[in-house]
């Protein structure tokens, strides 16, 4: 494996600026890497070698003229297949959209194009972002580069695995209940869910509009800050977009990396521990908490009692929103059309197409959402879930009156085996216990690698949460913790494991 592709995006940006490499060279190295390992990992659904190299050549030409557009101009990136891209297929991991090529770019895609980042391809995901393992992709699962018989998390397992396997230095993900952070945790990478509304959702094929957010998937905290600032900011095309500028994140990450957290108050969430939390995960998490104390932070325990009900509220609100969102897949304007025999009506075609185009998990959630929104059940389920959402927001507010950031493990266990929870929806949903509250409240969160488990040698993630629009705190504390933890060893042995067919 080339040394260059193991560098962080920030280091690659410096190398490009210093003329030590070119975007074409870098892009080709990543494409070679994808060709070498993605047959095993399956992080990508679509690879755009030609387009990426064209964009890279244009970047090199700009740089030669002294016209670089952005610090990351020329640094390649992978894009989750739920974000629309002109000229590149966008399937959302579903047969429903097989072969669909959108006629418009998502705003975040436009932003990375305008900044000159070559797009390597589109990454695998659970169908329409529903899942925690990428096994619900209609195109087959992505495998965890740490151990190929394990899940890479989900729904954004493709983006996380691509970055973990050095197939890309950067990726875009989306997080509705943990789909950036949980894959980050189980692949030993960094993932950020920004404050709701601070990154445009235009061109993000919606799962649940009030929960979805686009964010960075990287190997370092600084890289996430660079990408987050690039994609953030107000977008008139998204009516839920906030007007507050997204700035100061890179500065916060650089300040944090100096390692001084004196005066920072950190709250350990009492409710996100105990039964259901693997001891090896808790051991690594506790080490991170000790490190925060050593860095000068004032660590206290904080209680957020309504978090206990977050998962139940989420699995009513999300299905309710997704059942109406996915109604647009009606086989009339785009997507799969299946025409039954005889003289079928539009409705017959719709029903047959949706049965053929959607997978099990999507069907489960659409039906659950239809149920929760039915008259007679609405108040007891959806209405009640919305009230729980209020209580969770209030718990966050109270907690942030006491502390600057909250901390918890990102995921209750390390990566489990492919297939282990595929037909047990509730067990799968439990993966997101710690990540869901932030989506319900709109607060930002980051997962950073806390080290590897003493039990199975697989990565463990630690999650930091901050108040709405205080994303910079995540970067300051995250960068300090990352520096104190040091390199999380194991991924450097990736090629040996790939050579051994993942048996190691």
């Amino acid at each position, binding site marked *: 494996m080339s040394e260059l592709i193991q560098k962080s995006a920030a280091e690659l940006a410096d190398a490009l600026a210093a003329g030590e490499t070119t975007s074409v060279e870098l892009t080709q190295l990543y494409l070679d890497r994808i060709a070498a390992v993605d047959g095993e990992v399956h992080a990508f659904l679509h690879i755009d070698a030609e387009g990426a190299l064209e964009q890279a050549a244009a970047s090199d030409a700009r740089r030669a003229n002294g016209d670089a557009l952005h610090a990351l101009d020329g640094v390649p990136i992978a894009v989750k297949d739920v974000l629309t891209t002109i000229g590149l297929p966008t399937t959302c991991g579903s047969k429903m959209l097989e072969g669909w*090529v*959108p*006629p*418009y770019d998502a705003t975040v895609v436009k932003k990375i194009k305008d900044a000159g980042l070559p797009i390597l391809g589109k990454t695998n995901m659970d169908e329409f972002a529903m899942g925690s393992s990428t096994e619900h992709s209609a195109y087959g699962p992505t495998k965890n580069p740490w151990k190929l018989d394990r899940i890479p998390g989900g729904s954004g397992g493709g983006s996380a695995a691509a970055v973990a396997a050095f197939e890309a230095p950067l990726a875009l993900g989306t997080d509705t209940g943990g789909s950036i952070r949980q894959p980050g945790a189980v692949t030993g990478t960094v993932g950020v869910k920004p404050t*709701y*509304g601070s990154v445009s959702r235009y061109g993000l094929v919606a799962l649940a509009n*009030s*929960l979805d957010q686009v964010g960075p998937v990287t190997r370092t905290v600084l890289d996430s800050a660079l990408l987050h600032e690039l994609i953030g900011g107000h977008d008139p095309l998204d*009516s*839920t977009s*906030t007007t507050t500028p997204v700035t100061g994140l890179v500065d916060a990450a650089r300040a944090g990396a100096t390692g001084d957290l004196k005066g920072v108050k950190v709250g350990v969430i009492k409710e996100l521990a105990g039964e259901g939390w693997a001891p090896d995960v808790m051991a690594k998490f506790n080490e991170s908490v000790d490190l925060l104390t050593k860095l000068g932070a004032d660590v206290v325990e904080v209680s957020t009692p309504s978090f206990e*009900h977050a*998962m*139940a*509220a989420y*699995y009513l609100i999300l299905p309710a929103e997704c059942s109406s969102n996915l*109604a647009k897949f*009606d*086989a*009339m*304007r*785009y*997507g799969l*059309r299946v*025409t039954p025999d005889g003289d079928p*009506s*539009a*409705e*017959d*075609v719709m*029903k*047959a197409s*949706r*049965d053929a185009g*959607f997978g*099990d998990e999507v*069907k*489960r959630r*659409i*039906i*659950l959402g*239809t*149920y929760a929104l*039915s008259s007679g059940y609405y108040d*007891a*389920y959806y*209405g*009640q*879930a*919305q*009230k*729980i*959402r*209020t*209580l969770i*927001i209030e718990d966050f507010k109270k907690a942030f009156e006491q502390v600057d950031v909250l901390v918890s493990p990102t995921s209750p266990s390390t990566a489990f085996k492919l297939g282990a929870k595929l037909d047990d929806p*509730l067990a799968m*949903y439990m993966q997101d216990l710690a990540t869901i509250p932030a989506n319900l409240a*709109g607060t930002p969160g980051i997962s950073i690698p806390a080290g590897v488990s003493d039990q199975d040698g697989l990565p463990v993630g630690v999650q930091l949460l901050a108040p*709405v629009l205080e994303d910079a705190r995540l970067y300051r504390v995250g960068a300090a913790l990352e520096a104190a933890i040091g390199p999380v060893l194991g991924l450097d042995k990736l090629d040996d494991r790939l050579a051994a067919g993942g048996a190691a």
Partner: protein
Amino acid sequence: MPEITRDEVAHLADLARIDLSDAELDHLAPQLQVILESVASIQGLAGDDVPATSHPLPLTNVFREDIVTPSLTPEQALSGAPSVEEQRFAVPRILGDEQ
């Protein structure tokens, strides 16, 4: 304890316009029952004094200036359509025999 019967799942699938097979109904109905039992735990937890939150940010109507901006061309808008006729989406018959 809430119950979601196989017949009810079939009815919901009909409302959601998904033509589930018998095998799918057999498979999905018990799973939905388990999920429903789990999420039903929130019933009655929050009283009338707790307001509902539909959205994490307190947003009201968002307006923009009434300025004409370019949009998709008809060709672009129709580019993903399963069937096109005279620059329009072509769809199967909408009315049934009895209409």
